[in-house]
């Protein structure tokens, strides 16, 4: 590595956000009175002062080329004085004051392949992670599934015809970067085979005590194998979380045959009406079937459809299932209830049905 360069400064932090706010925001900061959503993808915020700000929200694949970012910059210059932002779900928002610019901007964005929408009761962008593009941990790809699923969901992005918001998220492994664990629908990359210990590498590459401590299920033990200090994995106690691999590279567990995807439903984070809660297992395993993961796409589609057709206004996925009950959810979604659905980790007993509040279907 080179010497530290001369012009370097450290710990300056990010630029102050005020530099990046359009005048209308600077003038009305903290004074917004209400908003309306005149059409999908467009927010109109009205200030106590009467000033109006229009935000036009366009889809983004999150992974973008600088070419695209420059294109966004150009559009911002063209329509809104160069001011734009990104959302917490990785959409891009153009911040306009001229309502006449809305339609042309939308036309340009749509033409460039970045549909406008994602507001109110729609499906917004899929929060997701790196997958095979960048991460060593990935049990599945991220971007490919996201693209495949959203291709089927785009009409729910550009329209606002769903009972409530529906948030889909994807994480390519159990580390769950992106906190998919509280999503209406979560798509999760999973392993299903225990790590294969590379005994020749353990000692040089790993802190054995850290690897042992890393296992949530005490499946990792120090062992001497062929005379060298190494690790053994009690396969029957392993549930493939990969935490040992995270701390010890000599314990790989990627496996093309058995890796795949699990689908989870009914989580949320907002406090509106019901409390935030975790997503629950809907489908334990679907295969990795690139490039378009048809099994995953079909399953997500089916769940969205069945929810959209049956939920009441404002009912998020989890609220809806709460109302109809899990047995009916499984029936409506056409998913078989299996052993894997029943929790068997530390707090498992708390998920058992410990009451007589049972529903029976008409025969």
């Amino acid at each position, binding site marked *: 590595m080179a010497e530290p360069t001369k012009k370097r400064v450290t710990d300056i932090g990010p630029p102050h956000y005020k530099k990046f706010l359009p005048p209308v925001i600077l003038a009305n900061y903290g004074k917004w009175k209400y908003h309306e959503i005149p059409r999908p993808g467009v927010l109109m915020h009205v200030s106590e002062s009467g000033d109006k700000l229009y935000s036009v929200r366009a889809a983004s694949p999150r992974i973008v080329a600088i070419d695209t970012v420059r294109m966004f910059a150009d559009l911002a210059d063209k329509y809104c004085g160069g001011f734009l932002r990104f959302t917490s779900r990785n959409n891009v928002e153009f911040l306009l004051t001229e309502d006449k610019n809305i339609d042309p901007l939308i036309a340009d964005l749509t033409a460039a392949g970045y549909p406008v929408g994602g507001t109110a009761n729609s499906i917004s962008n899929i929060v997701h992670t790196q997958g095979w593009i960048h991460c060593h941990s990935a049990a599945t790809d991220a971007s490919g599934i996201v693209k495949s699923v959203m291709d089927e969901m785009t009409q729910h992005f550009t329209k606002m015809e769903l009972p409530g918001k529906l948030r889909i998220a994807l994480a390519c492994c159990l580390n769950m970067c992106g906190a998919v664990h509280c999503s209406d629908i979560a798509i999760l990359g999973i392993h299903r085979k225990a790590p294969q210990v590379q005994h020749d590498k353990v000692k040089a590459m790993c*802190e054995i005590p850290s690897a042992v401590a890393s296992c949530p299920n005490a499946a990792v033990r120090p062992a001497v194998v062929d005379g060298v200090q190494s690790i053994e994995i009690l396969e029957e106690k392993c549930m493939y979380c990969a935490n040992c691999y995270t701390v010890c590279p000599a314990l790989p567990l990627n496996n093309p045959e058995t890796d795949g995807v699990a689908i989870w439903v009914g989580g949320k984070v907002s406090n509106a009406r019901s409390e935030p809660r975790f997503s629950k297992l809907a489908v334990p395993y679907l295969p990795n079937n690139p490039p378009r993961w048809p099994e995953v796409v079909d399953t997500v589609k089916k769940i969205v459809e069945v929810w959209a057709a049956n939920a009441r206004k404002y009912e998020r996925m989890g609220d809806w299932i709460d109302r109809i009950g899990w047995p009916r959810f499984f029936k409506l979604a056409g998913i078989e209830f299996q052993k894997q659905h029943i929790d068997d980790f530390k707090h498992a007993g708390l998920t058992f049905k410990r009451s007589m509040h049972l529903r029976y279907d008409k025969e």
Partner: protein
Amino acid sequence: MASFTHGNITIEVDEDGFMAQPEKWNNEVALALASTEGVTALSEDHWKLVNYLRDYYTKFGVAPMIRKLCKETGFPLKTVYDLFPSGPAKGACKVAGLPKPTGCV
């Protein structure tokens, strides 16, 4: 596996410049490794840190947590970065011949 040469010794390292055969570590190796992390000479303080790391690792099989390292060597974190500009994990551990810290990035 790459290797690099410093003075008259050659060391096998991984892409990050961590030793592939940590059992070959010695004081000269340390100096060689240090040169890759912006450290040209190893002062008494450098050695104090390096030796602490090695002792700890030998005893417990893991690198110490940073807070412990600062406490037990008496070096505030700032000093550790002064000594090893690329920090305790990438800098000091590498020079001390410990396995590459993993996990939390």
